[in-house]
């Protein structure tokens, strides 16, 4: 379709959107308050985002950029209120300048300095100081990873229920889980050539992997569908009031 048709479609949708909302506001279906205006804003953004299904268009791009900006603003404010204010400002700076009954926690200077060093990444001369911060975070993560992964993701995952369970289906399921784990591990074990028995077991591993990938795909699609149903419900229930 040509540009003229696109502009025409966009104009008619905008007019329809305005007319519907003015009608809802005038008839009192939507209140002229924070809640009513919130619903109108959310509907506008929802429709703007879905307009991408027709084609990439200016309305979608505006909504997309607005979303990115709001998300960044949100994280900056949340970082202040949840991290920097309670951990740095209230523990170090406030008691330093004001008698709050608590002594300044000078130990907080360490993470504060490391945090400031991280921001020095933008300096040409002092960017190397940011390596100290990265080293701290990476070393911390690496140290925590080793025991926790061994415990939760290796030892715990190697715990199997007895193959002789209370019922035959349970026993079969336990056997299939054991077979699946062993065969998948063998499939990813490349130190032995995948021939003969090893090749056969690794092929079973591929089947298990295919089932898992298919299940993951189906599960992800349905999770997105659930979000889609949620948005459609919002449009026809909260905005249009067609269903209750």
């Amino acid at each position, binding site marked *: 379709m040509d540009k003229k048709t696109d502009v025409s479609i966009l104009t008619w949708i905008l007019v329809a959107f305005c007319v519907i909302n003015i009608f809802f506001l005038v008839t009192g279906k939507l209140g002229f308050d924070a809640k009513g205006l*919130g619903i109108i804003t*959310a*509907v506008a*953004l*929802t429709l703007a*985002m879905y307009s*991408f299904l027709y084609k990439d268009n200016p309305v979608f791009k505006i909504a*997309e*950029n*607005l979303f*990115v*900006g*709001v998300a*960044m*603003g*949100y*994280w*900056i*404010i949340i*970082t202040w*209120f949840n*991290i920097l*204010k309670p951990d740095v400002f209230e523990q170090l700076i406030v008691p330093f300048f004001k008698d709050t009954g608590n002594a300044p926690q000078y130990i907080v200077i*360490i993470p504060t300095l490391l*945090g400031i060093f991280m921001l020095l*990444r*933008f300096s040409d001369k002092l960017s*190397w100081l940011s*390596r100290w*911060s990265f*080293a*701290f*975070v*990476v*070393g*911390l993560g*690496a*140290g925590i*990873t*080793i025991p926790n*992964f061994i415990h939760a993701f*290796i030892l715990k*995952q190697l715990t199997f229920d007895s193959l002789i369970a209370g019922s035959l289906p349970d026993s079969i399921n336990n056997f299939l*889980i*054991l077979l*699946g*784990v062993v065969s998948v*591990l063998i499939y990813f074990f490349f130190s032995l050539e995948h021939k003969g028995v090893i090749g056969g077991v690794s092929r079973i591993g591929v*089947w298990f992997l*295919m*089932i*898992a*990938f*298919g*299940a993951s*795909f189906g599960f992800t*699609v*349905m999770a*997105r*569908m659930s979000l889609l149903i949620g948005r459609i419900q919002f449009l026809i229930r909260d905005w249009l009031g067609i269903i209750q």
Partner: protein
Amino acid sequence: MNFFKRTIPLIIAFIMGIMMAFQYYVPHEASQSLLKVVTRWGITIAGFAVFIGAYSLFHLHWNKIKRKVPGWGYSTFVFFGAGITIIFGLYNGGEFFLHDKQEGTMFDWMYFNVQVPAGATMFSILAFFMASAAYRTFRARTSEATILLIAAVIVMLGRVPVGALIWEFLPPIADWIMSVPNMAAKRGILIGVSIGAIATSLRIIFGIERAYLGGGD
């Protein structure tokens, strides 16, 4: 100078790594409080890192506006969205940002009426693209592809009411796929990934893996 630029970071990573790895095996109150304090320090440092992300985003869009690249006008909405959210956040319902965060402010309004619906819609759009991509690419050419296809169809149909209407056993079969073969394969993958993560962690702690230091001096 090389000592400060390259050796000290390696020492910091080594000390932190060894200390946190051993801390796990010390069942003492001091060990637990060390974990708590140091983890909180990590979160504080990550808090500063948010400003690196913000700088990168704003720098990118500011350059687009400054150079007037095609579509630069859309970048102004990034600043508009961020600016208005930050202003409402700092205003904090009239209490300003030095007080605790207030509930029910315009900042929360922005979150519930802009960020949540826009984010949910953005992710729900993926349903269309995934379905379209699957229709174009899913072909049961091999036995493996057929298994994948059947598992996907069963899980999808088993999760919606129409699945039970088609065949009453579809939902229990979908549940079985999720809890038996799917879990078995995921366990195998998880064990492999964990061994890889542990190996990488050891390489970082002992200074063999240095990619996080970046290039240059």
